[in-house]
Each structure stands twice: as C-alpha cells, then as structure tokens.
C-alpha cells in the first residue's frame, strides 16, 4: 500500500466505492480463468518463437495430457468390435519374435511354470487361481497377425492360446465392466478397455509358432491383442483383474497414450 502524507482532494471520503467490484466478483474470477486458458495456449505458441524449453512446464504438460485422454475417447469411438485385423500366411512368420521390454534381454528373470499361478481379482465370480496345466488344457485358437511397436517397427507373429473373451466368460467375469488389468512377474503392469478385451483376436497366448512361448517373450502366459500397440500386450502375466477403476500402465504412467489402439 502506498500511503500519501496528505489525502488527495480527489480521493472520495470513506475510500473508493467497492460495490461495483463486489457485484461482479464472479465475473472477475471467470475472466481470470479464461486468462489462464489463454495463457496456456500462448505458452504453446511461445515455444515456437523462443525455442527455449517451455515444453516441460506443468501447464503445457497438463494440456497435452488432457488431449491424450480425449484421444482415448476418440479411439474408443473409432474401434470396430468385429472388424478383424489383417492376417498373414505362415510363411511370413518371423522366428523368433522381436524382443522388447523396459530392460535388456540379459536381465530376463524366467518364470518357473511349476510354481506359477494366474490369480484373478475384481468383478469375477470364480476367482480360483489357475495353474499352467489348467491353462494349457483350455481350447486354443491361433492368429497370425502383425505386431506393431510404438517405436515404429513391426513383424508378423503366430500366436495361440485361449480366447480372452471365452476365458472371461468361463470364470464369470462382469463383461460390462470398463477395464481388464494385468500384473506381471517382472513388475510390469497394464490395462485395456473391455471392448478390446472382447475382440475376437485378443488371446491369452501360451504358444508362438505352435511351440510354448520362450522365456524372453512371456513364458508361460502373455496377452496378445491384434488391435493394440506392442506395449499393450503384457508378458509373464501373474494376475488379471476386471474392474471399473482406471489402472493405467507402466508406459502409460510415463506419458504414452493409454488406449493405443491400432
């Protein structure tokens, strides 16, 4: 506050009339909010002008994250539940498949099939854990489809195992729930939307090119869906949960788009 030694003759007695400000308090706050939005937008433009590192500020990050969430919704609308991904002849199958994880292939910790169990949680009626033998006894189907990585590479793979929709029906899962989420032996985790989980080409794979999946590719059980990017296919699965809660995923929590449909 600036204090003048003697009150100005122009200053009204009893201070400035504040009634107009009080009357429009809501409006003034509203304008500030709009200003904030405008600020966020011009911040994006500013990046281009200065070339400095504005792209990592919280405001920009939060706008980008919102748009990524909006893109999840758009992809949900674009998803065609019964449209099959292109399939390929056996002669095009790449053996072995291409390895990728959040660590190098030397750091793989193989899973012991004898003690391995698949746990079930959430909106599932029969949550009894499954052994590898029980999983192997389920009816199998095979898909030869393209695997596309978010990085940009791809290969044709031949995967077989139980259809996820049939498995979820068998254990009495609530198919109206929003998400199916996965936990893995290597602390990787991920979740997919129910519509993609119920797609005909989404399976719990146990075999590659008719042989049991080898250690680097998710032995004994991994997800293989033809309608999502590679990182949406968790390997070495140890638990499946059917839920209405958003569980994110390892890469998704680091900024990659959650839906990541192809």
């Amino acid at each position, binding site marked *: 506050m600036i204090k003048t030694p003697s009150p100005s003759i122009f200053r009204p007695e009893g201070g400035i009339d504040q009634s107009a400000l009080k009357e429009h308090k809501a409006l003034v706050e509203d304008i500030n909010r709009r200003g904030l939005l405008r600020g966020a937008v011009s911040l994006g*433009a500013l*990046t*281009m002008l200065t070339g400095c590192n504005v*792209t*990592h500020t919280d405001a920009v990050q939060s*706008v*980008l*994250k919102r*748009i*990524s969430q909006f*893109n999840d919704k758009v992809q949900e609308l*674009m*998803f*065609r539940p019964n*449209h099959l*991904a*292109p399939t390929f002849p056996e002669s095009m199958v790449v053996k072995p498949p291409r390895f990728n994880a959040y660590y190098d292939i030397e750091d793989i910790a193989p899973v012991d099939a004898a003690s391995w169990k698949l746990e079930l949680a959430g909106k599932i009626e029969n949550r009894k854990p499954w052994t590898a033998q029980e999983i192997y006894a389920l009816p199998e189907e095979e898909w030869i489809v*393209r695997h*596309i*990585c*978010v*990085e*940009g*590479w*791809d290969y044709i793979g031949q995967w077989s195992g139980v259809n996820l929709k049939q498995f979820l029906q068998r254990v009495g899962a609530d198919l109206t729930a929003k998400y199916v989420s996965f936990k893995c032996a290597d602390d990787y985790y991920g979740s997919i939307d129910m519509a993609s989980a119920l797609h005909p080409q989404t399976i719990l794979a146990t075999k590659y090119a008719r042989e049991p999946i080898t250690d680097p590719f998710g032995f004994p059980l991994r997800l293989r869906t*033809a*309608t999502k990017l590679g990182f949406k296919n968790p390997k070495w699965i140890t638990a499946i949960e059917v839920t209405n809660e958003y569980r994110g995923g390892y*890469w998704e929590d*680091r*900024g*990659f*788009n959650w839906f990541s*449909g*192809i």
Partner: protein
Amino acid sequence: MHWINALAMILMIASGWEIYNDEVIFGWLHFPHWMTIGGGAEGALQWHFAAMWLLMINGLCYLIYGLATGRFRRKLLPVWPSEVLATVRDALRFKLGHDDITHYNAAQKLLYIGIIVVIVVQVLSGFAVWKPVQLSELATLFGSFQGSRLVHFIGMALICGFLIVHVALALLVPKTIGAMITGGPVVDGAHQGGGR
C-alpha cells in the same frame, strides 16, 4: 488460417522427427535433438496427436472455404504446362513480374495445388500409420505398415522442401509478407466475384 496452419505444421514436423528417431527408416538419418519437440518419444507423440487436431480442423475449414467460395477455382485454375514453363523461364532470367500479388503465376498455381494434395495425402498416410487395423481398408492403399511410414516420411520431406522454397521466395518479394499477415490488398468487388 495460414498462420494456424504454419504453427500446426511446424509442431507436426518437429514432433514427427522425434518419433522417427525412435525407429529410423534410414540408418544414416537421425534428426538432431535440438530440432525436435517433445523431449522423447512419449512427449513427441503427445505433441503430434495434439497438433493433428489443429492441423486437421484448420485444414478442413480451409478446404471447405476454398471449394465453397470458388476461391480455389478462381485463384488456382487453370494451370497450363506451357504457362508453367514460361514462368520458370522468366524466373530464371529474373524477368518475373510481381506487380499484382493477388494474382498467382502458373508456377505458383502448380506448387499451391501440389502442396494441398501432398498435405491431404500426408493426413491419410498419417491415419494409416495410426490405425492400420481400424482403417485397414485405407492402410492397404499404402501397402504394408512400413509402406505407410515411408509415404508419411516422403510427405514430410516434400512439405519441408515446399516450406524452404515458399519462405525463400516470399522473402525475395517482401511486399507479399505484409499481405500474408494482413490478408492482402483490398480488391474491388468485380475482380473478387468475377470468376477467373
């Protein structure tokens, strides 16, 4: 519209380079980090899939406006090969006139039509890379997944080439810069509405 497109295009190109760097098509070509936007693939993808809305919505408005008002027909057609050759010949002899900047010469017409087509194909190949399964019918047009990536890359290269020529020529004829910002000189009604 032009400047929204310019901003969106620069964001798309610079973030696209970072995405490309994650799995290069040509072993000899990596884009220097300082030229890219996003910091890493995850950030670059966020920028790419945000700026695409700006590019597509603005581009659609531009196409609808250009077709509905007859602006494309008036300003960009017809293009005669002989005129294009004559324009190029004049340009090489530094005899090209720029007195009326509201009127495109034949080489300009050809380039502007070309870049509109390239950007439309670029959006389509982008969809093919993004949704090779949901839009498998479209993706088939570009061959394999890597085919779509290659077309998307070539589209980027053509747009960059256009950008360099476009900016260089605009700088050579400085009065066009003012027009690009203000919307150009006022033309009388007869000229504007009078077909070509």
